[in-house]
């Protein structure tokens, strides 16, 4: 990859993510009303509002790690529910992944997601097929790693991540919840898409849009 993803591009990505979540607040609420406590849309919208304020503030750091840490702290204090500590952990761990200071290359972007995923699994103790955000993020990270190993371009790597995340999100419709509030419903949770898997999908959807447009290739 010729160009690198700068902190400013990460900022644009997370602004796009925040906007996408806010557009989808009602959808997330509907999904969480079916199998949870109906708070995922409201919690995520509140957290994304805080994130927008934080990201629009010109005083943000150029350092990728410091930037990701600041995103994590905003989500920890702004989201609530189970999503607050989970997204907070995701970005806090992502902030410990290798960078080139004020930018990351495609391999480092993939590692960033991998670090976040590993943190999520430790925090939430969820595995694949538990019907959680892991079902979106794990296949997406694995798809990125595979595409990267095959020396694909950034556009291909990010498209692979989006596609795998989308399939993972849709797969949560077919499976029974084994973690979180939805697990109380047992087999009745089948047939409903997981709200956390849905909000996590937008991370990869917006990454594919923003990083491709801004020329990370």
């Amino acid at each position, binding site marked *: 990859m010729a160009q690198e993803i700068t902190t400013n591009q990460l900022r644009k990505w997370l602004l796009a993510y925040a906007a996408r979540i806010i557009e989808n607040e009602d959808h997330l609420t509907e999904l969480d009303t079916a199998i949870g406590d109906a708070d995922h849309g409201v*919690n995520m919208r*509140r957290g994304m509002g*805080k994130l927008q304020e934080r990201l629009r503030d010109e005083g943000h750091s150029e350092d990728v790690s410091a930037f990701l840490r600041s995103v994590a*702290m905003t989500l*920890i*204090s*702004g*989201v*609530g*529910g*189970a999503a*607050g*500590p*989970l997204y*907070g*952990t995701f970005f*806090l761990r992502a902030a410990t992944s290798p960078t080139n200071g004020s930018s990351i290359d495609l391999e480092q972007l993939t590692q960033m997601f991998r670090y976040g995923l590993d943190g999520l699994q430790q*925090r*939430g103790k969820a595995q694949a097929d538990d019907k959680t955000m892991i079902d979106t993020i794990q296949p997406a990270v694995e798809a990125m790693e595979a595409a990267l190993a095959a020396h694909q371009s950034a556009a291909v790597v990010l498209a692979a991540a989006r596609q795998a995340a989308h399939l993972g999100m849709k797969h949560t419709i077919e499976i029974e919840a084994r973690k979180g*509030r939805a697990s109380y419903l047992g087999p009745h949770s089948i047939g409903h898409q997981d709200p956390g898997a849905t909000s996590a999908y937008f991370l990869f959807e917006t990454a594919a849009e923003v990083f491709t447009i801004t020329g990370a290739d």
Partner: protein
Amino acid sequence: MIGLVIVSHSARLAAGVHELAAQMAGGQVAIGQAGGLSDDGETLGTDASRILSAIEEVWCEDGVLLLMDLGSAVMSAELALEMLPEHRRRNCLLSNAPLVEGAIVAALHASLGEPLQAVNAVAEAALSAPKLANNC
């Protein structure tokens, strides 16, 4: 003497449990509270950075015992520990105790100068203490 931190989704619940526990401890034990989300006192939720501040407020080398209400309070408390420096993290303990009974028992035993593990053990024993006399 160990410190205690009360973690709840509700700022008012945390304050109420704090009130009960502080009365038990006769003002001798440092008890912190982290209830609700940071931005206001009204939004329900747990905030790891608030929990972190509460740990730091009551910090003591003897250790800090954290008592949580339920669900994601545990994840937020774990995340708060992750944000602590290693030497402090080693002296913090998440309790499996029920919040109200556990906080009261923990405050009493902490005020007697008992060590962290011992205080946690009696607090966790409150899980199996019957509430109704005829269940004894």
